[in-house]
């Protein structure tokens, strides 16, 4: 028994051999018995260190305690006091560096599976019908939220729960941001995102899709239309390329395009859906973050025979979530580490045919604290590829900053905001990847939450 308590209850998963051929979700989630048993592993310690690891301060011991007592609807209610999107967070948060990293149990074994329990209880609610909390009387104040990623959705949901009249403006035809266009179905089913968005709408939030702020409407026009405060959560959507020769060859994709075609446009269901995608036999994905792992595993599911992660640093520096790396390895993704592409070349037909790389070694740590890669002279080698996905990072889209007067921006095109999310322009807040650069779902949600509090105070101070 004691030994059993040292590790998390495993979550049943699709077998790697099977799952690499389909887009269904990989883990199945806990059933009630397993969830209760896992909840019993929580020591309910006084210090609650896990809570400090949570960017939105979920009362973790309380919701887990309620699972243990099988008070499921009370548990989800507790969780949702702080987190409007638990079914998503339970699936994509890097728990190993947050709540679970601080768990007392982690000192002598595995931490409590906080993420798995969060997922369980959120899914339990989705299966049993989502309850809308009582809403306060309308304040009569109007807020516009730009972008419907986790930052925008959270900010909108919280403001609605404070009684404000909120409208979200989204550029794409479907809300959710990276949750719908970036993170693949097999990791975060789009049905789950749709239900979480539905919950936000049922809180009274209005949603206008197909509105590109900066083009269709500007921030100034939103003020003219009577919005009293504006939250900008437009994310970090611009793809970065390597800047090496051959990047415009056919078969070379930015990860954004590759994933958007597959997830948002459902190219994996082509020709039932009209958007096509092309994946050859040998696919190289450049980069080793979550975006790269998602691209690699997507390529595999689209029929590639060999999928390589090409990364210029070593295994230790890979920024992806542990579980993603682990799943990718299980599925047979091949890791070419300490390898840096210097050139892509194509055949007569214009399609990419090969990738020339240099071997690297690690030097001293750079400003980010990671050891920087140094090319090894004369180590050039070439390998055959017919599809390349570039997943080396995204930067903020300049559309909103460029078209909004009085908005200060940082060096990398991010919007400058203080600890409350307030920008240099009165009445305008910002949060999520547009402020921090590409980060995490939960950080974006945390920023949306903080801004909502600050916006509420501001609105209440207006006559």
């Amino acid at each position, binding site marked *: 028994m004691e030994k059993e308590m040292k590790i998390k209850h495993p979550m049943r998963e699709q077998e790697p051999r099977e799952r690499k051929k389909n887009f269904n979700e990989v883990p199945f989630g806990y059933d009630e018995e397993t969830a209760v048993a896992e909840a019993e592993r929580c020591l309910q310690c006084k210090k609650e260190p896990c809570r400090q690891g949570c960017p939105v301060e979920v009362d973790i011991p309380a919701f887990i305690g309620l699972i243990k007592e099988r008070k499921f609807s009370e548990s989800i209610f507790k969780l949702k006091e702080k987190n409007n999107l638990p079914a998503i967070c339970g699936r994509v948060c890097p728990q190993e560096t947050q709540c679970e990293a601080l768990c007392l149990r982690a000192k002598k074994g595995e931490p409590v599976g906080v993420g798995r329990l969060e997922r369980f209880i959120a899914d339990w609610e989705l299966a049993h019908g989502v309850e809308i909390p009582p809403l306060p009387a309308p304040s009569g104040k109007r807020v516009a939220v730009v972008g419907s990623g986790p930052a925008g959705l959270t900010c909108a949901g919280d403001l609605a729960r404070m009684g404000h009249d909120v409208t979200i403006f989204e550029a*794409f035809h479907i809300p959710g941001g990276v949750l719908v266009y970036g993170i693949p179905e097999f990791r975060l089913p789009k049905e789950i995102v749709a239900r979480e968005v539905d919950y936000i709408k049922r809180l009274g939030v209005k949603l206008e899709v197909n509105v*590109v702020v900066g*083009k*269709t409407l500007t921030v100034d026009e939103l003020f003219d239309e009577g919005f009293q405060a504006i939250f900008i959560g437009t994310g970090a*959507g611009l793809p970065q390329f390597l800047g090496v020769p051959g990047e415009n060859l056919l078969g070379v994709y930015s990860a*954004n395009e590759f994933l958007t075609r597959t997830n948002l446009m459902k190219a994996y269901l082509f020709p039932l859906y009209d958007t096509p995608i092309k994946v050859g036999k040998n696919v190289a994905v450049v980069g080793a973050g979550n975006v790269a792992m998602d691209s690699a595993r997507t390529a595999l599911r689209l029929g590639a025979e060999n999928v390589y992660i090409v990364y210029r640093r070593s295994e230790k520096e890979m920024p992806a979530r542990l579980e993603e790396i682990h799943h990718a390895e299980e599925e047979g993704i091949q890791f070419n580490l300490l390898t840096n592409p210097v050139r892509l070349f194509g055949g007569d037909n214009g399609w990419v045919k090969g990738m020339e790389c240099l071997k690297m070694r690690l030097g001293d740590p750079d400003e980010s604290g990671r050891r920087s890669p140094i090319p090894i002279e004369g180590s050039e080698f070439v390998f055959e590829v017919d599809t390349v996905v570039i997943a080396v990072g995204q930067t903020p889209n300049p559309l909103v900053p460029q078209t909004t007067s009085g908005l200060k921006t940082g060096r990398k095109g991010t919007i400058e905001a203080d600890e409350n999310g307030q920008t240099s322009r009165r009445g305008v807040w910002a949060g999520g990847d547009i402020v921090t650069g590409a980060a995490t779902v939960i950080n974006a949600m945390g920023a949306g939450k903080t801004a909502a509090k600050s916006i509420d105070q501001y609105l209440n101070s207006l006559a």
Partner: protein
Amino acid sequence: MYRLITKKVLSSVHKLFEVDAPLVARKAKPGQFVILRVDDQGERIPLTIADADPERGTITIIFQEVGLTTQYLGAKESGEYLADFVGPLGKPMELPSPGGRVIAVGGGVGIAPVYPKVKALHNAGLNVISIIGARTREFLILEDEMRAVSAELHICTDDGSYGQHGFVSDILQQFLDDGKPIEEIIAVGPLPMMRVVANQTRPYGVKTLVSLNPIMVDGTGMCGACRVTVGGKTRFTCVDGPVFDAHQVDFDELRARAGMYLDKEKMALENCRCGGAH
């Protein structure tokens, strides 16, 4: 959902729709485009804004039924709806300085994107010499509209069935050779035509602009599907364009990229949802 208000059949393969899209109509400027999706299974395709009426809140689009999505679109009737319609996207065109000779060249369905530009120049008080052409008389669109906004209108068809027998570049050559200075040439049409015009005007050093229509997904700069090499640099057509200096565009690359999904498109056409209509 975006209502299709009127439909006009311009030729057996060219159609026009007026779409109810007040927010887009309020902002649209010549040179800009929209991205639309016909239905929930549809792909996102860009189409140039051929006209905008801010008062009525409508946008006019004109298209040739070349592939899957344009065929679905063509099968729609007025009163029906499009799933999505977003814009205006891309940079508006810049007006040339007044006084000089401006020549607009439109080939095939390229006459549709040329028209709003000529109209804008006309409204700004500039005289435009327009040259339009098509494969055959049947496919020549917007003749009356072009005539109404052009100081001179020259017409040609590849088969000689209407206007001068020959290509738009043949007519353009006469103006390049007549010794009078040309301020600017705007050419829109199929890629081969734009390439011919670019090569033709380069030795004369005449400023020549083309409007590109590569494959797009989002239309806001987030995917890079629309990238094109201009003057040796990678640019995104949807945010840096769609209008570029013709002499700087790498047409070979554009042409190759435009064909990236041709086999898939063929497959989709064979499986199409149009209920045997095509």
